[in-house]
């Protein structure tokens, strides 16, 4: 149900983001999706990659501080109201969305969104009870491999 996300700390300076990307590229690791959050001074690069264990090890050896977080991938109908239907399920629950970003679903009619919940397990239970399709980790990594 949950997917491993890698986060890196980067200083907000020209040229900082290319270095980890180049390192992963040189080892044949595919970045399937990413998002960057930034402040004036620093940023956090978050990534879903094809081989997170190896990627994490490579980045640590290169001296990066790497954080692993469990995020949840959810398939959303690519049509008006697709996202709001999903979010309504959580609206009156204690679950909070810390941030979210999109993932290429490989299908025309749906999008996949990556959610960072403060309580991922509670979120999954609520969503499944509402009949919303949470993409399994096996499936998302398969999509990572095949896409």
């Amino acid at each position, binding site marked *: 149900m949950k997917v491993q*996300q890698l*986060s890196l*700390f*980067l*200083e907000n300076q020209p040229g*900082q983001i290319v270095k980890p990307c180049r390192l992963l590229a040189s080892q044949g690791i595919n970045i399937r999706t990413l998002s960057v*959050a*930034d*402040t004036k*001074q*620093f940023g*956090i690069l*978050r990534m879903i990659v094809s081989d997170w264990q190896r990627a994490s*090890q490579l980045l*640590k*050896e290169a*001296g*990066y*501080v*790497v*954080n692993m*977080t469990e995020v949840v991938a959810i398939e959303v109908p690519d049509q008006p109201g697709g996202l709001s239907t999903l979010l309504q399920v959580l609206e009156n629950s204690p679950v909070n969305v*810390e*941030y979210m970003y999109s993932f290429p679903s490989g299908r025309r009619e749906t999008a996949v969104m990556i959610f*960072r919940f403060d309580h991922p397990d509670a979120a999954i239970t609520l969503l499944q009870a509402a009949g919303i399709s949470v993409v399994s980790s096996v499936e998302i990594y398969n999509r990572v491999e095949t896409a």
Partner: protein
Amino acid sequence: MIATAEKVTQRFHPVSAPDYLPVHLLRDLQLGRLQATVRRAFDNVALVRERMKAGGVRPDDIESLDDLTRLPFTVKADLRDTYPYGLFACPLSDIVRLHASSGTTGKPIVVAYTQDDLNVWTSVMARALASYGIHRGDIFQNAHGYGLFTGGLGFHYGLEALGATVIPISGGNTDRQVMIMKDFKVTSICATPSYFVHMLERASEMGIDVRELPLRAGGFGSEPWSEAMRHRMEEGAGIKAYDCYGLTEITGPGVGAECWFQRGPHIFEDHFYPEVIDPATGRNVPDGVEGELVVTTLSKQAMPMIRFRTRDITAIEPEACQCGRTLRRIRRIGRRSDDMLIIRGVNVYPSQIETALLAVEGTMPHYQIILTREKGLDQMEVQVEVTPELFGDRIRAMVELNEKLTHAMEHSLGLRVNVSLVEPHSIQRSEGKAKRVIDRRMES
């Protein structure tokens, strides 16, 4: 397992016997040696003779240890002014070793040793190592620089005298240090605290958990370090981190060493006599009161030092130590009078930053202070490297961390501070003494 280690570590070693001299015998020994040292310096060192004459004191006037206060101080500048050989008390033909300490301004200072001096140095280093629980059978990684710096050779000879196995790896090449630590089953180590922390960081990146290695003790010194640093080293490496106090002008490492109880270094008083003075007035302060440490060598032949002002801020700890040593202890050196920064008129010591960092997250990341001047006003920036413990994926948490660090530092320093979180390894590492402060105030 721990019980066994403690038992072995606390075992009494014969080299430690002088550490337990009855106090009245120790004072007798000190007085006899002090009188001989003053006589030797007066007879052979022009600078000491002139100063003593100017102060109206002669070697025969030293009738008790209290008379020490009548003697003039020696300061670091005296060593520079008499560079290279001006303070030697014996002919060059009796000198078997020279060391030098890097001067931050041009010329280094030079120190000399006769064979007797080297023997004393070796014996105090052996006693220091024995008090850390290091023995024959220990595999010791000597990561202090070998060469003109006293750290490498000082430890080396003490270790050999003790019968431990020395790995003379010297400083630098951190990947190799980590590999050897693991492959050679190293049990004990010496380095500067900042370099050892760097080794731990590197080991962790290489996927090696130092806590799982046989390493159990380390002797650390040659730069001021805080309890926060000790915590970081002990937690990160699963060891006991002992202070090794020393300075080139007196002999190098081995002027004092912590025992099992880690309550500040015991001074090897049979060779080095400690006093603490008020740095502003030069007057002695009572035990327990903080001031500048002053050391007089009691047995040095080549270069006796009379009341050398160390610039190290400490206090003599009056209570007896549980270990039973009669040697007095000093408070561990957390700061030096020349480390002190004056920022907008406020006195700031780097150790205050360490305390604030530890208070916030319980860890001691690598940091650096950068001072600049804008429109005539001093600006203080503290760069803090992000560690795995500090880092998370949520931007809000990172911004909060930055605010908490800023608040803790401002509270501890009483000054406005700009805290910048920076990438790991972006602050330059030193293989020797850490450079904690970059002062660019004069550039603007």
